[in-house]
């Protein structure tokens, strides 16, 4: 057990030192003044550094090893991008600096916009959204604004979403005030076009689609789908989470999408930071450009760069300032390192995935027998039926082999799903080692299922009791009153989604 930093604290210790001046202190009016100080940690710097160093060694990142977490595009994070983001001219730049004092930053954003327009095949870009989910919501706000502008908002209430969609898609629909209409997946893993036809009409605001889908499959009927939606006067939203498969190979704009978000932290290698930050710029068709968030980053006629607030039809702001600039620096750097070679990046991602698929297809069930794009979904259904070894068990056992597990139990349409995304930055040796581990687990399932059920055996903790966690909801340290949960009865371990 690693102590909490609060448990390492001792009254009176501190790491900080601060300037003090010989100035008159200002009194805070009584009822506004802090009565009892917050119980922040009290440690000197040596133990501060040790604490977080120790915690870091209890965590697995891409730097530690292979991290094939499907849908999350866990590619290498080049260190030069970290150097870039630390340059004082970027790091210490205030967002309200006058335009003349921020030309370099504005130019970088403008260039990134141009690049994203080219990669997506859509002309209008806003970098503002903070992540893919916010990109989705912003996109749906644009749908609202567009239809409101046309007087169709009352009528167009529905957004169609396939059953393979990521959970953010339906959640965004609700937050944008639309209603959800589901559509099924056909036996080849495409959107079921017959089902779709019956669901699209004058009430439809649009579609949200990930292509390639969360199954890692490119929808073969995308042109037909486009005809259906645009034919009904509806719009199409592209969830760009899987753009890593198709850079320079197929562009959302060319597929007919009207709005796309791009997860900079996936395709363009923003370090995931244990959960974030991300970036979710959107690119849109010309008809939607007037509605983009405020302000727009523009190049003026004199060649200088600036912020344009004069966009009367804009939906407004979706976050502070102009978006997560540090994320832009890293992604811009990443892209400039590839240039037009982004195509080779996607090719390698797809090659790596297909190689894994080819080596693993005999050990696991393959729900859709096709070549995949940058990721693919296997199922542990047979393992479960025959040996009682579930996708969760496989995931936990992989840890003992030194791998981060893939995404499991998603997409929902595949039972016992294992969603595997190697990314392009993995060398073949790592892929081979992973395959050997995956296939060894298949053998273990037959020969020694207990070792799989009991996994992981080599991590700092065993499988954790998630039911207990949710039931007790101990979500902060309680100091003297902190409960000891080891005293409490165990609850069954529930499978978890990702």
């Amino acid at each position, binding site marked *: 057990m690693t102590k909490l*930093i609060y448990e390492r604290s001792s009254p009176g210790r501190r790491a900080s030192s601060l300037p003090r001046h010989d100035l008159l202190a200002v009194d805070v009016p009584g009822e506004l003044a802090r009565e009892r100080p917050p119980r922040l940690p009290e440690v000197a710097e040596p133990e501060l550094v040790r604490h977080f160093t120790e915690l870091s060694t209890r965590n697995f990142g891409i730097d530690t090893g292979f991290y094939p977490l499907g849908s999350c595009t866990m590619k290498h994070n080049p260190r030069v991008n970290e150097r870039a983001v630390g340059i004082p001219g970027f790091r210490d730049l205030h967002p309200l600096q006058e335009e003349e004092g921020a030309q370099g930053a504005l130019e970088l954003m403008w260039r990134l916009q141009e690049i994203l327009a080219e990669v997506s095949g859509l002309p209008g870009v806003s970098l503002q959204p903070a992540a893919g989910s916010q990109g989705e919501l912003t996109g749906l706000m644009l749908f609202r604004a567009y239809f409101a502008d046309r007087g169709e908002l009352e009528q167009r209430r529905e957004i169609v979403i396939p059953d393979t969609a990521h959970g953010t898609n339906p959640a965004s629909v609700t937050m944008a005030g639309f209603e959800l209409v589901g559509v099924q997946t056909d036996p080849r893993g495409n959107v079921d076009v017959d089902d779709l036809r019956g669901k699209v009409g004058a009430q439809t605001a649009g579609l949200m689609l990930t292509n390639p889908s969360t199954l890692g499959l490119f929808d073969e009927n995308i042109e037909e789908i486009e005809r259906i939606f645009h034919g009904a006067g509806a719009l199409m939203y592209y969830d760009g989470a899987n753009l890593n498969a198709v850079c320079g190979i197929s562009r959302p704009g060319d597929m007919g999408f009207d709005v796309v978000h791009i997860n900079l932290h996936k395709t363009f290698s923003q370090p995931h930071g244990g959960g974030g*930050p991300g970036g979710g710029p959107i690119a849109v068709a010309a008809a939607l450009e007037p509605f983009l968030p405020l302000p727009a980053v523009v190049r003026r006629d004199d060649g200088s760069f600036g912020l344009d607030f004069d966009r009367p039809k804009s939906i407004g702001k979706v976050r502070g300032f102009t978006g997560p600039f540090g994320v832009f620096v890293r992604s811009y750097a990443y892209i*400039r390192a590839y240039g037009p070679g982004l195509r080779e990046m996607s090719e390698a991602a797809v090659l790596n995935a297909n190689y894994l698929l080819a080596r693993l297809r005999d050990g696991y069930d393959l729900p859709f027998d096709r070549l995949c794009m940058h990721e693919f979904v296997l199922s542990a259904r047979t393992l479960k039926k025959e040996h009682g070894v579930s996708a969760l068990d496989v995931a936990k056992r992989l840890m003992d082999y030194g791998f981060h597990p893939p995404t499991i139990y998603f997409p929902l349409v595949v039972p016992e799903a294992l969603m595997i995304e190697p990314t392009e930055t993995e060398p073949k040796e790592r892929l081979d080692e992973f395959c050997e581990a995956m296939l060894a687990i298949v053998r273990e399932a037959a020969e020694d299922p207990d070792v799989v059920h009991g996994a992981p055996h080599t991590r700092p903790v065993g499988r954790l009791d998630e039911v207990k966690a949710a039931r007790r909801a101990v979500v902060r340290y309680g100091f003297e009153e902190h409960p000891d949960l080891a005293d409490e009865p165990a609850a069954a371990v529930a499978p978890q989604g990702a």
Partner: protein
Amino acid sequence: MSHLSLTDADREEMLAAIGVSSIEELFADIPEGVRFQGRLDLEPALSEPELVAHLEELAARNAHTAGELSFLGAGVYDHYVPAVVDAVLQRGEFLTAYTPYQPEMSQGVLQTIFEYQTAICELTGMDVSNASGYDGTTVAADACFIAKHATGRSKVVLAETLNPQVRQVVKTYAPGFGLEVVEVPHRGGTTDPDELAAAVEDAACAIFQQPNFFGCLEPAPDLAAAANDADALAVAHVDPVSLGVLEAPGNYGCAIAIGEGQGAGNFQSFGGPHYGFIAARSDYTRRMPGRIVGETTDAAGKRGYVLTLQTREQHIRREKATSNITTNQTLLALAGLVHLSWLGPQGLKEVGETCMALAEHAKGLLAAAGAEPLFPDRTTFKEFAVRVGRNAREVVREARARGVHPGYALGRDYEGLDDALLVAVTEKRTPAEIRRLAEVLAEVGS
């Protein structure tokens, strides 16, 4: 430059294993009509040294606060970020990990989030915090979403002294949420509790800021009481750096506390990435957006941490989720935790006192230089507004030509304040720098 690891020999072997003869074949499922023809029209690849040179050239065209003496604030502040923050954030195990879906692989991140949640709860006087929101604006929208569902009401009340960007974001979200937004104007720099009481009738919540956008201390307990009297949720937007000297919202009746975390641990970085925080009383735990980490044990009774209460979230609850947030701002929140741990309670108090004393000192010097306080009767924290006697944007421009950025021109957001400047003074500023500001304002002011 390219980060690919495959050699030609690897490629051949892999294609053979797949059973295709070219990479092209792997894309057979993409209909001809939507294939991209040719090469992307992007500038040629840069090698690493060229890339760094290019980025340094861009960066050199930005006037940053290590080069220009600056009193800009208005939501993002030039507080000192201790070096330990960098050191921790550059640990690859934190930097290159994602959301801790697999807790046994991710105890490090999970524990830091739990510690972060604790720090935020301690700062704000609340029971529960999530793992972070995008920034100080979107957490306000989150609070409205909670309030709407908790009260079943659809009006939200915003103090006009709430950061304009926060108000703008709430207004952008409002139509989708089905919310009506009402604003309460300020009176002499702060919000009148009676006016707020009138507006908050039938509302889901009222959001005010402490210290407010003008740097003034609001009568926060009275504002919270007004909301509570109407059975609306009182939501305080607070500056974490102030909470060593200012009372915690949880201690004066707020249901929810939100804020922008930047000042605690994040560089300014032209506005992001930073983190927003949101914390609430336990009544609202199950309505909270985003990730929450909870404590539990393994089968052997060993303590461990997991993502918990996930039935709130989009990947389980889909269209019924409390939010669509997935990727959040964990790394920046970790920076916040490290910064707050570096400060400790005593350091936090000292930063607050130093900012306040320096700002008050600046107020005096500026008044002497002809820039009178805009709201002379109000107590301010680290920021205050002055009248410069002419268009403040012009003053900014002329002061910058003298090497000083004197602050934010309030006319950009408030009608009638074209001659007002919002001046921020952090603990990094020195009395000598403040004197320089006064000199420059004396030169370029009215």
